[in-house]
């Protein structure tokens, strides 16, 4: 099994506009997703939701600025670390990952153990 990150990019306005109900729906969808990953033979090994980019602080060298590193319409809002057999399996799992206001990116996690 190989490790992949599923990075969730969404328009933050989606959740801001949808209020509590949108958030509640998303939480339930992510709960279902966690179950589906196991059913598909994968495994979630980590992950979290992030506070909105308005709370971000960026640092480059000594310069500290208010806001995310890159301003984009759809921002990184959360991630999962999963185990999957290969890229096809990881994509199959990532397609199930809820991201109603954007989409997800699958990235292989680098094996830094050497050898």
């Amino acid at each position, binding site marked *: 099994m190989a490790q992949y990150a599923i990075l969730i990019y969404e328009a933050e306005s989606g959740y801001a506009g949808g209020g509590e109900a949108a958030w509640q729906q998303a939480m339930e969808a992510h709960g279902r997703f966690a179950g589906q990953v196991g059913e598909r033979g994968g495994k979630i090994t980590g992950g979290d939701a992030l506070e909105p980019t308005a709370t971000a602080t960026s640092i480059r060298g000594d310069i500290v600025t208010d806001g995310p590193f890159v301003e984009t319409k759809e921002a990184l809002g959360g991630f999962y670390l999963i185990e999957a057999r*290969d*890229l096809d399996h*990881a994509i199959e799992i990532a397609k199930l990952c809820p991201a109603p206001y954007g989409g997800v990116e699958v990235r*292989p996690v680098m094996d830094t153990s050497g050898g």
Partner: protein
Amino acid sequence: MRSGHGGQRQDPRRDDQATAAAPPGRPGGREPARNAIAAAVAEAHRREWAFVLAATARVTRDLDAAEECVQDAYVAALDAWARQGVPRNPGAWLTTAARHRALDTLRRDRTLRTKLPLLIVPDQTSGELDETGVEGSDVIADDRLRLIFTCCHPAIAREAQVALTLRLVCGLSTAEIAKAFVVSEPTMAARVTRAKKKISAARIAYRVPEAAELPDRLDAVLTVIHLLFTTGHTDPHGAGLLRPELVERSIALARLLRALMPDEPEVCGLLALLLVTDARRATRTDERGGLQLLENQDRSLWDRAAIAEGGRLVIDALRGGRPGRFALQAAIAAVHAEAPSYADTDWPQLLVLYDRLLRAWTSPVVALNRAVVTSMVDGPAAALEEIATLEQDGRLDGYRYLPATKADLLRRLGRCPEARQSYENALALTENDAERAFLEGRIAEMAALGPGPAAG
């Protein structure tokens, strides 16, 4: 297309496998024999490269390493075949040689292996070699489909899929591929390297897709082969209209795929489409290299054997309900190819086929081609309405054949000033010299005729 590479394994270190060509064990071979050997190796490179590389990649589990071993095997063949004669089964000889080399390298470099993850090869057992380099069974499995599907994986950008297929499946050098696509060699090298690295780092599995995903994945493979063909068929930049090398490679790939997946109607459809389209190759340009329209082509020069083979394949491709886009395109091409003349083409039949094609594949380019058929069934005015819809649609903005088609319809209606304007719009979008010359000729013709009705 030969079937399979079964039969007995051939060991490159044994002399008794030799057959004719050069007398075994006679040193200092004469020059003609040398040439014959070089030709045999070149032939084996063209025919067997994909087979040898695909089988070797399963051992090295690294595409770069596999390429090196296979190249070494071809170099070794030059000498060995000169001494021992050309083996009965060059593909098996080369595969065994490349895999031995791979095994040696693996043993020697076990500690020096790259940090990149190894190619994921599901169902590994049948490909494992034991320490003597002998495979479990005597038959070397045909891994070419694995190789083709890996090169055309949807996680790889289309242009990189095309480059990888030419590099790994056809064995073309990076320089040759760069030349075919009119990009610099470093650009093409970077494209190929990046794609290979993604296969390994993102763990794109070296396998044939499962039944559920096969239709989509196969479509990507067919699209790549078709793109190769069309790139070879109409050089978008250069002076000539044809790059025969790409055309021939794409047809060879389609034939290979047909041999490996004989039950897939769309594979059949693609091969038919390429054969029937290419059958008109000799007449697509006039003696000065100018563009020759279908209606003016000398049909007696068409390759009747290719059209007949394509026609038989179309029947196979249409069998079994719900034909796909390649089968339907092939059927359309076959109707054109089998017509005795442009005027006597079965246009109503073409209209039916285009409507089925649009249902299978909603492409504005198909809708544009349908408009041409409409003009032959219901007249140019009816076709202009379809063109207007396409202009509003916007997806064909910048597509040179939209204004060119419109111009032709206007010309046939005798609306010369409007036709001239559309020809000029098309000219502004066209880089191919043969097509430019054609459009400039039409513009001059329209200018000379001026406003007023014309025969059409």
